[in-house]
Each structure stands twice: as C-alpha cells, then as structure tokens.
C-alpha cells in the first residue's frame, strides 16, 4: 500500500463517516422481535418431526419384548418337559400326551440330545393318524390302527452329528430307544429305527417324504431340521395337522435376523419450477449438478412375519456428494497498462465448481418377500424411509441466480429440509453361507422428496438415489 492509501487509511480510521440518522429504531426492533419469534416457532415445530422416530422406537421395543417373551416361554417349556401338562404341542386333550426328555441323560457319545417330543394323540383328536417316513437309511412306520401304543418320535441333535444319535427315554412306557448306531426295530414302540449307519450328517440332506395325511410334530428347536421336507397341511387337514401348521407358523414368526451393510451410491438431483418465471433457474440447476459417488452404512433388524413375508427396519447413515458446476460471465473495462489513453474491454468468466456434501440418518421400514432355491434366495423389499438431515454444506443458485453458500452466518437456510420421506425399492440376492449366516447383495433405488423450501422458493426439489450394497445377515432367533 503506497503513501496515498496509507494516508487515507489513517484519516478514515477515526473518521465518523456516517451517522445513524434516518433509522426508525422502534420499527427496527419491532421487526426483529417479530422475526425471532417466528424462528423459535419453527424450531418448536421441528420437534414434531421426531415424534415418528419415537413411535418407531416404541414399536421396535414392543416387538422385541414380544419375541423375547416367546423365547422365554419356550425355554421354560423345555425345562419342564417332564410334566405331561406342559406339552409343547398344547393339545386340548392332553391326557394321552406323553413326553420324553433327556435333560439329565447323556448319549453314549457323551453328548446331550437337545429335544425329544413324543406325541401320542387320541383317536378323538386324530383318528387317521399314520406316519411313514422313507429314507435310504431309516424308516418310520406307525400303524394306523394302533394309536394307543403309537408314538411319533423326532430327535434333534445339535447341527453337527447324526440325526438319530441320541438316547431318549419314553416316560410313559419307560421305553428306551437304543443309541447303538445300528439300531434294531423297537417293536414295543412301533418305531423302526434306522437300519443302517446313522451317522449321516445333516449336510447329506436325506430326502424325507411324508405321505398324504401324515403328520410329524416337532419342537420349535427341531423343526428347522426337516423344514424343507415338510408338507404344508392342506385345506381339509385334520385337527392334528392344524397343530402342525400352528407350531410351524409360530416357529417361523420367532425368527429375527440382523444385518450389517455398506455400499456406494449416486444421487441424481431433480429440480422443477412451480412458476414459469423460474424455468431458467430450473434449467441451470438441473444441468449444474452432477452426481458423485457417496457411501452408506446400515444396521438392520429383520422380523420374519411368515415364511415369505418379512419386515425390515434399522438405521442407516448416508453420505452423498454432488458436484455443483456453474458459470457466469460479465464485461469489464480497464485502462491499458501500455497506453493509458486506451480503454480495453474484456469479458470475465467465473466458473464455480464446488462439491456439495450432505449426510442423512435414515430409518427404513420395509416389507419384503423372497423366492428360495437351494442356498440362493431372490427377494425384494419395498417401503418408506424416515430421513433426518445431519449436515449439509455446499453452494447452489439463489433466487436471483447468484451463487449462494449454505449454510453461512448470514443465512441459515438450507436446500434439504431437516426431515423428509423417501420411498425405497430394494431387490436383493441372498446366499446362505452357513446355518445362521447369509450374504446379501442388493441394489437400492430411493426416491427422496424434499418438497419446497425457503432456499428454493417456488421450486420443487427431489432426488433419486441408486446404489449397491453388500452385507451379512445373522439369524438370531429361530
């Protein structure tokens, strides 16, 4: 700065350049108080947006308590299964229902059998009950006419081990099932145990086939072992079959899984003017924004309502990036440095490239179904998302086509509202890695409607998110 400017600076430092005449102070403060009151009212209204979130938490907690209660009931049943009245199948007439359990029994291999359920239905209940299970390695064969002495036995071992490798005691008749690997036919119980080696593991997937009208009752802990082979009861099923259906469905409803996912996505913004005077701005905004890769991580909880229908909810953190590209040009005139008498006219162009960023906390509520084929399952989730904007920073075009930064100290307005809904479509592919573990690959399509805001006056603002996510799902309760 040269002497001339220094002198000017020294003069202006203590110079009272202007006074405050002409300002109506009363009107000024009255308007300020009015505006501040409106802002506080808006903040109060913002709290209402959290009500759905609180409601959702209450819902999830209630569902969790419900399933937890069911689990406790089942455990209690397992612990009291020596009492005939505490039958798992809860038959209305339980005088002929007997139980056998192995709580304190050890198999010859030193392992405990998990559960044994024996049902001895009366003729009144299931007059035509019969069961034939065929398999290369073993057979069940229960005569139709000898119901009083017939038992249906299902033995479940832990997932590793033989299907029929446990000891069991039939309490009513004190009948012992042999635990020898080559079991003989037990005539007294009319149960024909496996003829051959019984050490075939579950992985060998024996092809069990239940014939028409046959019923196999299993505890909730054992049903998953033969689940793929169960025949769903028909419409004219007997009362006993309905019990199977009841147990089967109740067991499926208890299934809860959690999933952890991460992935990337692109966010395509869409602006539409609601006023014909805004079309230039709409065009500039739509052409000025380019999508860039963002990322998301989510934790989900999946409730299996039925075998096919499930509800998914959870929390998701979404971080999106958009490139804002905008050019302005203007003319300016200046004195030529070479010849002071020449005035040069130049055009200046200003190109703004800025990476807009925003992060969102989302709670999806999705309804889904799938089709299974072996280890693979193809499914789809549909639903809505409750989205809460955590942060947003960037530049965009203001009302008068000037480049505005948000947020800044002088302007608290932002383009994306604090809360908004999104609509989800998520096809997915599951691969069963192990008994309780699945790998899921899915694509996300979300329509996010931000509505109108004070930042984009007379403009509708929405976006479409397309993404790819991968993750694992762990079954917690079966």
């Amino acid at each position, binding site marked *: 700065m040269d002497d001339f400017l220094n002198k000017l600076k020294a003069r202006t430092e203590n110079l009272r350049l202007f006074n*405050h005449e*002409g300002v109506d102070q009363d009107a000024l403060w009255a308007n300020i108080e009015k505006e501040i009151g409106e802002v506080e009212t808006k903040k109060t209204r913002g709290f209402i947006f959290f009500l759905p979130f609180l409601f959702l938490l209450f819902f999830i907690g209630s569902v969790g308590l419900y399933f937890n209660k069911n689990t406790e009931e089942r455990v209690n049943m397992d612990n009291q299964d020596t009492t005939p009245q505490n039958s798992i199948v809860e038959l209305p007439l339980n005088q002929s229902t007997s139980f056998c359990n192995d709580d304190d029994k050890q198999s010859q291999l030193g392992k405990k059998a998990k559960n044994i359920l024996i049902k001895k239905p009366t003729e009144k209940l299931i007059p035509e009950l019969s069961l034939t299970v065929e398999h290369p390695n073993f057979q069940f064969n229960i005569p139709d006419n000898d119901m009083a002495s017939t038992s249906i036995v299902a033995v479940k071992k832990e997932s590793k081990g033989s299907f029929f490798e446990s000891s069991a005691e039939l309490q009513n008749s004190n009948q012992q099932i042999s635990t020898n690997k080559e079991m003989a036919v037990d005539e007294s119980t009319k149960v024909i145990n496996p003829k051959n080696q019984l050490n075939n593991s579950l992985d060998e997937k024996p092809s069990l086939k239940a014939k028409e009208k046959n019923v196999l009752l299993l505890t909730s802990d054992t049903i998953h072992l033969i689940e793929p082979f169960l025949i769903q009861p028909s419409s004219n099923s007997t009362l006993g079959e309905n019990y199977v259906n009841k147990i089967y469905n109740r067991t499926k409803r208890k299934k809860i899984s959690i999933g952890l996912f991460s992935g990337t996505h692109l966010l395509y913004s869409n602006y539409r003017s609601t006023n014909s005077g805004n079309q230039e701005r709409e065009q500039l905004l739509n052409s000025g924004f380019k999508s860039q890769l963002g990322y998301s991580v989510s934790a989900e909880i999946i409730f299996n309502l039925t075998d096919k229908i499930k509800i998914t909810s959870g929390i998701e953190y979404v971080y999106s990036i958009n490139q804002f590209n905008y050019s302005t040009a203007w003319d300016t005139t200046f004195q030529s440095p070479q010849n002071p008498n020449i005035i040069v006219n130049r055009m200046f162009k200003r190109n703004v490239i800025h990476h807009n960023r925003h992060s969102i906390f989302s709670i999806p509520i999705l309804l889904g179904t799938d089709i299974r084929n072996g280890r693979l399952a193809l499914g789809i989730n549909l639903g809505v998302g409750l989205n809460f904007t955590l942060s947003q920073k960037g530049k965009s075009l203001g009302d008068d086509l000037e480049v505005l930064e948000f947020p800044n100290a002088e*302007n608290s307005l932002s383009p994306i509202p604090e809360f908004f809904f999104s609509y989800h479509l998520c096809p997915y592919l599951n691969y069963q890695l192990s008994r309780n573990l699945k790998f899921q690959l899915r694509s996300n399509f979300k329509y996010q409607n931000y509505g109108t805001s004070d930042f984009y006056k007379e403009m509708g603002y929405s976006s479409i998110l397309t993404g790819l996510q991968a993750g694992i799902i762990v079954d917690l309760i079966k």
Partner: protein
Amino acid sequence: MMVAICKRYLWNSSDMQDVLQESFISMFNNLNQFDVNKASFKTWSSRITINTCLSFNKRSTKNSSEELILNLHAPYIDPNYIDSMSDEELIGYLEQMPFPYLQIFNLFIIDGFTHQEIAEMLGIKVTLSRKRLARAKEWLQKTITDKNEFCKKYIFKQ
C-alpha cells in the same frame, strides 16, 4: 457501528433499515456460533453486517449494469494533501466514488480485509480486487485534481 457499516457498504442507502434488520436476525439466530476466543463480538457482528450488505447489494444489482468506462489518467497528488482535507470534503469524495471501487476501498482500507478475503466475500478473483483498489485510488486522485483545477480555473479566478 452497524449503521455506519450499512451506510458505507450499501448500494442504495434507503435499504439500510432492511439490512440492519436482517443483520440483527442473523446475529441472534447464529449466536451459538459466536466464539469469544476467536473474535470479539464487535468483529463478529461487523462481519455479519458486512456480509449481509454484500448479499443485499448482489441481489439489488443483479440486473443493473454499471458504466466503468473511465478515463483514468490520474495525476500525482502529494499524500500530505489528504491531511489538509476536511472530514466533510473527504466523505464527499468517497460518496461519489463508483460503487465497485468503493466496495473494495471500504473492505481493504477501512475494514482491513485482505484481497484474498475480499475475493471470497464478493465472489471475484484476487487480481480483480487488486485492480479495483488501484482504480479506486486513481479515481480519487483524478477527482481531487479535477476539482482543484476546476476551483482554480473558475472559482478562484473570479
């Protein structure tokens, strides 16, 4: 203080009350961002008022074009001449200064912002900020000289 800032920075001084109101509201709404360890309240509130004025000018001058064709063949003026000017005379010169120059003059000379900060605040290049300051100085020198010559030629001769 805020009134003085508004008067210095506003293109149209009749908007002063609106801008003051906006400035106060911004201050109240963003009071939680004020950090006494970073700046005094005076500095912080001045910055908000200046930013509000600049935004307001942008909006109000969007469609207006300004004639910047000036014959800037500025003669040399002894810097000590500034001291001999009265307050009213100096204010009179500044009030006549073309607005783009006055904006840079205010920001750089009076409020002490750097060219980099000015460029960010106004959305212009740093070189343009420097040019405008140089031209503000030339304009002032030329205007003072012209007035003095006018006085010499027409007033003092009478």
